[in-house]
């Protein structure tokens, strides 16, 4: 019996080895069944154990289990190797063209003017400003008179106006939001007002409709130095940390002192180029200390408060940021243009 069991083991292991590494799974399964199956030679041999004397049974039983274990282990190893081989084969046959575009929903783009305005708004919100809005169609009073631009004032010439009625206009700047906000609220105020404005002008650098951001701050002791500080912080964040600024006197009827702010041309590094017209500076916004007449118009006491205001064109900043050379691109809504931002 001992010999028989050993012979079965040797034969099984030999025949398994003969099948070789490339044997199909079915053959290994058949061979396994021949030894370990219900009618396999090992099973048959083990059923014969009942005829043995009781004293031999434990010894033979142990040996039989040993043989069975050895054969099972051998077949498992062979089958494991086979499965691994098959997995490798199947992985090798599965291929994608990795250069084809991925399956994404086509993502649309936010308009570059919106992106620019939102970025600017974000920076000012970070500086403690809150957002206010006003109507596009405004009274002549809010757009001009209250801002110290009476009728027949030469400054009206700078802003050729669309009229809806004698005393109703399309706002020519976002400054009327100053008037509206100050009439509603009391200082301290730190407000920015992004919005759409209109002027009768249409060429490479002027659009009859364009976007502005107005900002103003009113408190007991706001200074021109504060104006410089806030605008420096804003422009350096908007353009570049190292951007140099130039504040020079200018004139807007609703501020005094008034200023125009230039940034150093970042395209030519201040050597002079087409964008800065050889001056090394790019005009970016207008600003100043709020005029006492404006405070009077909204019922503030000019002796008890001070404030600054500034306004800038979003298109101009977007044109500089993205290198767009014709303002009209922004309003043509060509998808070839829009998808670039």
């Amino acid at each position, binding site marked *: 019996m001992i010999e028989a069991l050993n012979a079965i083991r040797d034969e099984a292991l030999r025949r398994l080895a003969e099948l070789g590494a490339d044997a199909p799974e079915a053959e290994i399964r058949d061979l396994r069944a021949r030894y370990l199956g219900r009618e396999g030679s090992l099973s048959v041999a083990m059923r014969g154990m009942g005829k043995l004397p009781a004293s031999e049974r434990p010894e033979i039983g142990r040996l039989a289990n040993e043989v069975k274990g050895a054969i099972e282990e051998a077949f498992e190893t062979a089958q494991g190797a086979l499965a691994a081989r098959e997995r490798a084969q199947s992985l090798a046959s599965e291929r994608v063209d990795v250069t084809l575009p991925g399956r994404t929903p086509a993502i649309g783009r936010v308009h570059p003017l919106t992106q620019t305005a939102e970025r600017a708004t974000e920076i000012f*919100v970070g500086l403690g400003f809150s957002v206010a809005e006003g109507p596009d169609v405004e009274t002549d009073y809010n757009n001009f008179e209250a801002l110290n631009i009476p009728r027949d004032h030469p400054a009206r010439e700078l802003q050729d106006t669309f009229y809806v009625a004698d005393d109703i206009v399309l706002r020519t700047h976002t400054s009327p939001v100053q008037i509206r906000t100050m009439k509603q609220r009391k200082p301290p105020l730190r407000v920015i007002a992004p919005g759409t404005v209109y002027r009768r002008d249409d060429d490479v650098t002027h659009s009859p409709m364009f976007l502005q951001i107005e900002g103003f701050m009113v408190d007991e002791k706001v200074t021109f130095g504060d104006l410089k500080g806030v605008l420096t912080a804003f422009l350096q964040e908007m353009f570049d940390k190292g951007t140099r600024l130039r504040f020079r006197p200018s004139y807007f009827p609703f501020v005094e002192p008034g200023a125009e702010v230039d940034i150093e041309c970042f395209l030519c590094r201040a050597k002079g180029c087409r964008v800065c017209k050889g001056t090394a500076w790019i005009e970016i916004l207008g600003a100043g200390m709020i005029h006492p007449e404006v405070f009077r118009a909204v019922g503030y006491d000019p002796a008890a408060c001070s404030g600054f205001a500034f306004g800038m064109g979003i298109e101009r900043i977007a044109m500089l940021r993205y290198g767009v050379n014709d303002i009209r691109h922004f309003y043509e809504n*060509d998808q070839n243009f829009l998808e670039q931002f």
Partner: protein
Amino acid sequence: MRVSLEWLREYVPINQPTPALAEALINAGLEVGAIEDLGAGMESVVVAELLSVAPHPSADRLSLCEVQAGGETRRVVCGARNMKAGDRVALAVPGARLPNGLEIRKSKIRGETSEGMLCSEQELKLAEKSAGILILPPDAPVGSPLAGYLGRDDVIFDIELTPNRADCLSHLGVAREVAALTGAALTVQDRTVPEAGEAVGAMTSVTIEDAGRCPRYAARVIRGVKVGPSPRWLASRLEKVGVRPINNVVDVTNYVLFELGQPLHAFDLAALAEGRIVVRCAREGESLVTLDGVERKLTADDLVIADANRPVALAGVMGGEATEVTAGTADILLESAYFAPLGIRRTAKRQGLKSEASHRFERGCDPEMVVRASDRAAGLLAELAAGQVASGVLDVYPSPVRRPEIRLRPERANALLGIDLPGDAMAEILRRLGIAVEIQGAEIVARVPSWRPDLAIEADLVEEIARLHGYDRIPTTLPRAPIQSPEAPPERRLEQTARELFTGFGFHEAITYRFVSPGWADRLGLTVDDPRRRNVRLRNPMREDQAAMRTSLIPGLLTAALANLRRDQTDVRLFEAGKVFFDSGEGNLPEERVALGAVLAGEGRPGFWGKGRAADFYDAKGPVEALLDRLAIRGARFQTEGLSPYLHPGLSASLRWEKERLGELGMLHPEVAAALELPDTLFLVDLDAPALLRAAAAGFPAFIPPPRFPAARRDLAVVVDESIESGELLEQIGLISEKEFREALRQIEVFDVYRGEGIPAGKKSVALRLSYRSDERTLTDAEVNVFQERVLTRLAKELGAALRT
């Protein structure tokens, strides 16, 4: 304003290099826009005498010239033919680089040595075109630099002046500014007038009828003038500031205007009826032919200069043709006046007429310059036109113009600017600007000079101090920020949400003009009472297709879609968030509200290379539902009623929430599409932001704890008539009132609609997936079966649905 530095030097010494001067002016608020070096390229061009001209031995068209420019004689080959021996010519010597870029070298031309070039006006950029070389007058000094001789040894600053700085609209004015900036003293020019003979009062008279509009009028008479061309120096200065010389009389008036800033006018005295001047407003029906040849109808608000009978000039704006100085003029009446700014501005605007004179008067001239300018012009006319200046000036000045006295508190100035400048230093700055100051205790009392009408209040002086102190020297500070929670206006947040969502669905954000053609209402077939016909109209649009404020985003989006399709874009996906405007009746500001819109055409799943599918209704509906979801608007209904006429009646839906109409979406009506040359498979979304916000406010989502027990999901396919919409099925299920059912049903989803084999004609199968869940325990199969049965019973009873088998 073009400023010649050579001219400027007559009034103020300039000791700094040109760029430094320009920078100083810019930093003081006089924006030097362009700097033009007139002598650039003429550095090596001199006046030369042509000694001889001989033919070139081997070239018919060339000549050999011998020239002399003070030193040795040079030989120059020349291709021109308009010169002869003895002429004065412009010689460019080797090393010169001409204004047109040409470099001059010693060279051999067809075998003959040429040591320079004789220049034409074109080559020197003195003229656009020229025939032959430049022949100079016989008195041109041989050997001297040509630029100096031509008066082009000069630099022009083109200064862009802000409207408040009328005082700088002259060389004297800019010189004052330079003096204030550099600390140099103004050069005082001693101008005496050689008066002779009869007193002016015996020859003419001046009557001012409206002293408000004309506070001052001064007349002089100059007799026996010889009208002719101006001398070179004067013509050259005028040309440099951009004025074409006409004759010596007119040129002198223009010259004084650019020198002193005072507009002058010369009348032909003989053409004035009774030889006298009346300053008055025009009478109804009067008219005047101005110097530009236009007959102008005058109104009672137009100030005119009249003679005894009729208007002869539009005061402060332009003279009249009938009294113009001509070649035959002998005696002239010279006007120098101060007119009130507003009146001039009204007339100039009404007449659509602008002149150098009106530009200055309407910004505010210097009333104290009137006589000084008259004297200066009279002196020049005597010198250059051989005129005899009658004795005296007829100076009518009934109500002297007073400039204010301003009290400046140095403390206030420092507080506004954020600096710490002593009062003395401020007073000194003001003095440099010609402002008389007196220190009274803690205040500085400043007397504004006659030439600064822009200085009226304390803040104006604060600006003057800041300007001269230097904006760049004001320290930069950051104001301390009060803690606040800046909350964006709700419309703004809605726009941001919508923008995020729609771009996520592949829509690009468009920004279209808020003014559109008023013809859109008809093109879209809006009914006569449609509120979208309540356009706000512009009185002065730039173009007819921008004449009305939009009442809807659709016209702009359709225009943008069309433009893209015409550029061979096959897929259009555009989204816009922006205001629309509704007229609220005369005298009222219109109603403005934010709308959200989108347009979609072409591929349903753009951007992927797999099998495509055309966009349909559901591609438009998807982002709308996503938006409703994001805004937590619950119970919104898509309905087929209440659509705009430009939408396809069967492939569109209006969107409602309770009684609120939130908007609509669907396919553009094929007839409208055809008329607009758009494809008829174009889908639109049009939503009303205020309505969405009201609906969103009601449905702010409360926290729902995550489920603790599993949900049971069951599918149910029912066969119904084709006419029944899936929404009706959901609605009926929603109406099942049994409490246990309502608590357990968490979600219903339509996941398939099937027509065809196995389904009778005129019917369709709709597959629903229902989820049931309890918060207390796991539902049993038996319970869920009962719920499903209930649903089927309801659908069968109300909608004739049958279980699909």
